[in-house]
């Protein structure tokens, strides 16, 4: 190929590229600039990025449909101040890079009004760092992570988390373990990133003050390598562990309990909130987790007397009939329920700023299924701050006890004590629609 | 029962490798095809065994059309081709190379008989049956290549440059074997050779190819005697 021909080609390509890009740019230019992004008089567009496919997606990928089910219910009943709520879902495969890309897509291309329920510690950190939501004034509500780093109001002015932080979780586990299994050998498996590191803080001398006979950090995704779960089991067994705490994602938890069963390693299991619900992923694994301890801030999904569970279940049956009503559905619907209240509180002239202001002033008072208080205020973007402990029953559902009476603990991400909570939640608004 | 080639033409892209070639090889005879490098000898042979596609013309053996057939089906019609350069598979054992030649034959007893026959013709192969072929000498490999071809019980044997790269003494031995095979097994043989003199000495007939065309045909003796052929191909 002669240089001349090559040069000509390059130029031709450049011209094509210019043409292609400017053509596709036209509709974007046609948009009116005055309108708040993602809101019209009849619609509100929200975005979420989370793993929808792949090993890390189990359970999480049921969230969007549950959220949409509740949005559909609201839309069918007049919407939020007359606006229909839509949710654009993007799959990030649990990869921070893809989460960044998705968020950029959602904001730049899909032009969503706000992010809601984005999932994952590393992902949200990378997004916060890279996309700079705060500086651009874009709300990211009810982030699904317990990483305490997000509870820094000045660093993340437009973000709010939903889950209790992993520090809180670790502190509460410490208290629970010391009370329930005094003088036992306690061991810990945790994910080797900020998710696990946060937990380590919660267990340390100044916080939970729990000492471990043995602890293993596993890198994300390594659980899928043949032999990796076996090596955890072998080491923990050799250390003589009696109580096994797992601070990992659900696939890691799943591999671990199965590997333990093979090696007849039978400690008292304490499964962290993130990875405990392996049963709804694969019902075949229920036998492995029966009797294991875990925790939740929402009522048990099989609680027969909880008004939120009953109403959500009813809406779910109508608008997401193909899916089973499980703990993921409950989490998704509760998040959507909170979102609708926030949007409503944002007023008729809804803007990103009014939404954030509404969350700050009214967020702590929002009705929701949680048995634990929310802590949103002008100075705090922290959501729930506590848990109740329970065990998995023979159907694989987490229950507090036979009578469904919950003992709720609350704490903070600092060195404050873990205390029994006397919080009583707002009752369900009529028809399950926020006032 | 004869090999008949008529008006055969083969193009490689724009180059015409074989141009309107016609000849007949009578049954039971050894025909040598000689000519300079690039005369189209190998192309001709590869066309007859189905390895090269022809552009135009006919070639039949036993009323079986050789063109437009695949090599694996041509061999089933009694045509065996020993391609250029010691056509054996070095990674296999001697025995496996021989077995390969009879792989499509159903009757295992007959196959064993053929193998016994071949190892009696080439006793060196019989001694080395379980050795890997890359331990053989050049001459032995060439014998193995011929032996492999014989394993399919051919009536027509196509040999491409069996003397290539072998020591003169070995060449003589190979040529003698080919002559003997033709006679004792009643084979029809087409022998393509650079070594024109050696080939014509054992052949019944000869064909001289020049730039893809038949230049001269005749009995081997008449070609050896032809002064033009002598000057151009035999070198004296």
């Amino acid at each position, binding site marked *: 190929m002669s240089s001349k021909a090559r040069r000509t080609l390059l130029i031709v390509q450049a011209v094509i590229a210019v043409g292609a890009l400017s053509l596709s740019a036209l509709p974007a230019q046609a948009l009116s600039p005055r309108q708040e992004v993602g809101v019209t008089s009849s619609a509100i567009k929200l975005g979420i990025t989370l793993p929808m*496919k792949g090993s890390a997606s189990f359970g999480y990928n049921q969230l969007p449909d549950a959220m949409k089910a509740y949005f559909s219910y609201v839309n069918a009943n007049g919407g939020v101040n007359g606006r229909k709520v839509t949710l654009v879902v993007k799959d990030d495969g649990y990869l921070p890079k893809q989460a960044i890309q998705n968020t950029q897509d959602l904001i730049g291309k899909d032009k969503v009004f706000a992010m809601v329920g984005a999932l994952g510690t590393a992902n949200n950190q990378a997004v916060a760092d890279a996309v700079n939501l705060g500086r651009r004034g874009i709300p990211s509500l009810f982030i699904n992570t317990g990483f305490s780093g997000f509870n820094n109001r000045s660093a993340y002015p437009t973000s709010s988390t939903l889950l209790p932080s992993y520090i809180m979780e670790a502190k509460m586990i410490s208290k629970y373990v010391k009370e329930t299994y005094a003088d036992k050998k306690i061991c810990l498996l945790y994910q080797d990133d900020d998710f696990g590191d946060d937990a380590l803080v919660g267990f340390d001398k100044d916080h939970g003050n729990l000492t471990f006979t043995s602890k293993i950090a596993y890198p994300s995704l390594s659980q899928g390598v043949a032999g*990796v779960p*076996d090596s955890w089991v*072998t080491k923990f067994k*050799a250390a003589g562990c009696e109580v096994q705490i797992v601070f990992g994602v659900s696939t890691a938890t*799943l591999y671990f309990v199965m590997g333990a069963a093979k090696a007849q390693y039978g400690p008292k299991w304490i499964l962290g909130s993130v990875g405990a619900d392996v049963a709804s992923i694969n019902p*075949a694994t229920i036998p492995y987790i029966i009797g294991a301890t875990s925790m939740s801030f929402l009522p048990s999904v099989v609680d027969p007397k909880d008004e939120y569970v009953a109403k959500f279940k009813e809406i779910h049956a109508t608008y997401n009939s193909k899916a089973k009503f499980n703990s993921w559905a409950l989490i998704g619907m509760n998040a959507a329920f909170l979102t609708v209240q926030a949007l409503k509180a944002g007023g008729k002239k809804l803007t990103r700023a009014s939404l954030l202001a509404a969350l700050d002033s009214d967020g702590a008072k929002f009705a929701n299924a949680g048995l634990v208080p929310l802590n949103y205020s002008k100075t705090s973007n922290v959501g729930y701050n506590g848990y109740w402990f329970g065990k998995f029953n023979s159907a694989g559902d987490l229950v507090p006890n036979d009578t469904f009476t919950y003992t709720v603990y609350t704490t903070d991400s600092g060195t404050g004590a873990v205390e029994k909570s006397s919080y009583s939640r707002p009752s369900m608004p009529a028809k399950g629609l926020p006032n | 029962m004869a090999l008949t080639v008529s008006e055969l033409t083969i193009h490689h892209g724009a180059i015409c490798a074989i141009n309107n070639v016609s000849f007949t090889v009578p049954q039971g005879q050894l025909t040598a095809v000689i000519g300079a490098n690039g005369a189209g000898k190998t192309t001709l042979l590869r066309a007859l065994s189905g390895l090269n596609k022809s552009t135009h013309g006919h070639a039949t053996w036993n009323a079986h059309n050789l063109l437009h057939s695949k090599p694996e089906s041509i061999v089933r019609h009694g045509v065996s*081709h020993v391609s250029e350069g010691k056509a054996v598979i070095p990674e296999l054992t001697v025995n496996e190379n021989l077995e390969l030649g009879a792989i499509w034959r159903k009757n295992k007893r007959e196959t064993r008989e053929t193998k016994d026959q071949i190892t009696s013709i080439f006793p060196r192969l019989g001694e080395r049956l379980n050795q890997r072929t890359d331990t053989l000498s050049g001459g032995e490999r060439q014998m193995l290549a011929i032996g492999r071809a014989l394993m399919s019980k051919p009536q027509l044997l196509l040999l491409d440059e069996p003397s290539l790269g072998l020591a003169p003494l070995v060449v003589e031995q190979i040529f003698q074997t080919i002559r003997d095979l033709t006679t004792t097994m009643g084979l029809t043989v087409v022998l393509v050779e650079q070594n024109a003199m050696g080939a014509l000495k054992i052949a019944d007939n000869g064909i001289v190819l020049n730039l893809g065309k038949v230049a001269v045909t005749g009995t081997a003796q008449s070609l050896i005697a032809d002064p033009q052929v002598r000057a151009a191909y035999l070198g004296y």
Partner: protein
Amino acid sequence: MFQFINTLLIGITAGSIYSLMAIAIVLVWRSTRVINFAQGGLALASSFVGASILAQQISFWIALPIAMIAGALFSALTEYFLLRPLLKRSGDKGEEIFLPIIATLGLLGIIKTILNFTYGDRIGSIPPPISDKGFVVGGQVIALSPMRILILGIVLFLMVLLTFLFQRTNLGLALRASSYSPEISRLAGVRVDVIRTAGWAISGAAGAAAGILQTTNGSGAISPESFEFSLLLVFGFVAAVIGGIESLIGAVLGGLTLGVILAFILMYIGGSLVFFSAFLILIVILIVRPHGIIGVKGGRRA
């Protein structure tokens, strides 16, 4: 000592599954000089076939062979409809191994799409057919269970079967001959095209077996975007290359080497280096022996 033996057992089990995958890769390489990156996807699709049969309450002993047959079929179809026309077009020269790799990557995408459409986020379950509880030796549970013995047994059985097939049968002779010299094989009457398809079919069956055994040895569950199967392909490929890519015995040795070394690294150094270790093991072996453990130096053009 106890931990050492357990590590060895863990490594051998994992390694034997890599070996099966490596064999699948080697078979394809020998048949057509192609690296099939859809191998993991084909194994996954076959495992889903196995899982759907198991879901009908049909025995593992029927599901495994049917999955292997499905694997053979998928793989043969791939060769027939994708690789054969591709290789005919590009000829022997040209873009060498790059184009087929890209074509099989494309196929992988299509397989995943089909699986995603068919199964969505559902999970295929392949529970162990017999106990996977480890034996107790001297009061200690070792990393060897009836299920693991079964895995090793199946792998061993398939290896013996393949060795017999390759060394003692006409099909094996034809497979070997076609891989070394297609032209001589055709002249000897071997239908090389058919034999290549057969080579791919056997490879597909081996891959399917690897997939099913990997799943029962692991979480017992498969999903359309299985990360485990990507790893199976990568480790299988690494094992095949360590073994010299041409040789079945090499593939087995490569798989076991990789499995055992990785198990020891996991146990005594830690999990964070497991992926990088695979690269290190490969590069160290290739620096010492550029053509793998079994590969012949200056041998066939690779």
